């Protein structure tokens, strides 16, 4: 295993690919890998790309990767597609849009199936990002499954989150809804050559400006967004960037915005705050998993099953049943 980790640190594609497969299939390998590699991570700028199916995420990832390569930055790409809830199978088709990137040794693309995870990413995506980080990719692009309104996990996995919209996806009421638009550090209106693109850009800008002069939520934090508190004061103002990814239009501007956001994160305390937010969630998640497993060891299966039956037949309620389970944990 140590040999494999050494090869991953040297950026050897075969080793990276094999380790990713192993962490996807085994939690214990994931634990070993993260323990061994974690100190080599923390260098990469992790950029999340999310948006509805068909909005052009993969094509945009293709263009972004080409742009970063022009700056001589190596790019790791993780593209997540959904697994079937019925068969567990998946069709991972994001590479179809990334054919321009073939044959470039500075690019590593990995397709992942979500394997039942909700939230837009796979359970192992965070570990895969760490592997690519340890392998020395300074830029990591993470493309989520086609996202609707509530798949917002990417905001906690990425430093910079791009939310992609396309024209004609609904009126401006859609832009007022809570959820995916709130996690954007940069809003992208792709397919900007289509009719209605101007209206989509305007609706999104209106949504952003509605926050001005009062307070708005940004990454779950209440922010003052009066005009005076805007960029001059060091606060990030979410830009709306039109692109036509198939033609490469708007891509240099988008890359400039992404890099401005990185500078903003690093110049403020935001980078560390986001890293701490991510670390806290990760630790709480691991703790939950561990507690659940401990419970399964401490309380015999038939005892647990009896409690489930008692809840189902209304002999007791779920809160009382869980209290009883929990008392055995701490006993």
């Amino acid at each position, binding site marked *: 295993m140590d040999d494999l980790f050494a090869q991953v640190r040297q950026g050897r*594609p*075969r080793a*990276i*690919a*094999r380790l*990713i*497969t192993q962490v996807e*299939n*085994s*939690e*214990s390998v994931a634990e070993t890998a993260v323990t061994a590699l974690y100190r080599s991570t923390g260098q990469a700028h992790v950029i999340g790309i999310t948006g509805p199916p068909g909005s052009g995420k993969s094509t945009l990832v293709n263009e972004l990767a080409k742009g970063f390569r022009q700056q001589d930055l190596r790019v790791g790409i993780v593209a997540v597609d959904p*697994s*079937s809830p019925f*068969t*567990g*199978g*998946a*069709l*991972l*088709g994001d*590479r*179809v849009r990334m*054919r321009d990137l*073939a*044959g470039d040794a500075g690019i*590593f*693309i*990995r*397709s992942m*199936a979500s*394997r039942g995870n909700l939230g837009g990413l796979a359970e192992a995506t965070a570990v895969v990002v760490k592997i690519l980080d340890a392998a020395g990719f300074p830029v990591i692009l993470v493309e989520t499954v086609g996202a609707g309104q509530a798949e917002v996990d990417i905001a906690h996995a990425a430093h910079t989150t791009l939310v992609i919209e396309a024209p004609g996806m609904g009126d401006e009421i859609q832009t007022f809804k809570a959820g995916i638009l709130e996690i954007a550090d940069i809003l992208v209106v792709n397919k900007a050559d289509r009719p209605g693109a101007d209206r989509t850009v305007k609706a999104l800008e209106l949504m952003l400006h509605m926050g001005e002069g009062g307070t708005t939520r940004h990454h779950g934090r209440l922010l003052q967004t009066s005009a005076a508190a805007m960029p001059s004061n060091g606060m990030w103002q979410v830009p709306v960037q039109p692109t036509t990814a198939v033609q490469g239009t708007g891509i240099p501007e988008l890359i400039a915005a992404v890099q401005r956001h990185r500078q903003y994160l690093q110049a403020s305390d935001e980078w560390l705050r986001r890293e701490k937010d991510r670390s806290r969630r990760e630790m709480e998640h691991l703790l939950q998993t561990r507690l659940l497993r401990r419970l399964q060891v401490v309380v015999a299966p038939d005892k647990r099953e009896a409690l489930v039956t008692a809840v189902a037949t209304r002999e007791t309620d779920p809160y009382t049943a869980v209290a009883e389970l929990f008392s055995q944990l701490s006993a």
Partner: protein
Amino acid sequence: MTEAQRTPRILIGKPGLDGHDRGAKVVARALRDAGMEVIYTGLRQTPEMIVEAALQEDVDAIGLSILSGAHLPLTERVMALLRENDMADVPVFLGGIIPGDDLPVLQEMGVTGVFGPGASTDEIVGFVRGAVQRG
């Protein structure tokens, strides 16, 4: 998730210049419905692109769909690249219009399954399951 579980990952690629990918899509869909993860690379791939994708995706088998008549040189190149990359153990199967006379040549190259237009998806799924288990 236990160590024993491993969802098979299969690459379906179309090397060469023919633009007819219906067969490749039908096979990709059938393998998906059989619970496998299918990496579909799309049309007009070079052997280099296919082997690079297979390496990065760490697939358990590679299916090539070729209707152009260029199956011999394309397959030969794919097999050579797999050997170069220390991936000769990855099973390769073929679909498309492949004349019977070429089968021994393809077998000699290391191709383990060839499926023509008459092949059922059950047959192909069964073959891939077997090939992946042996691997």
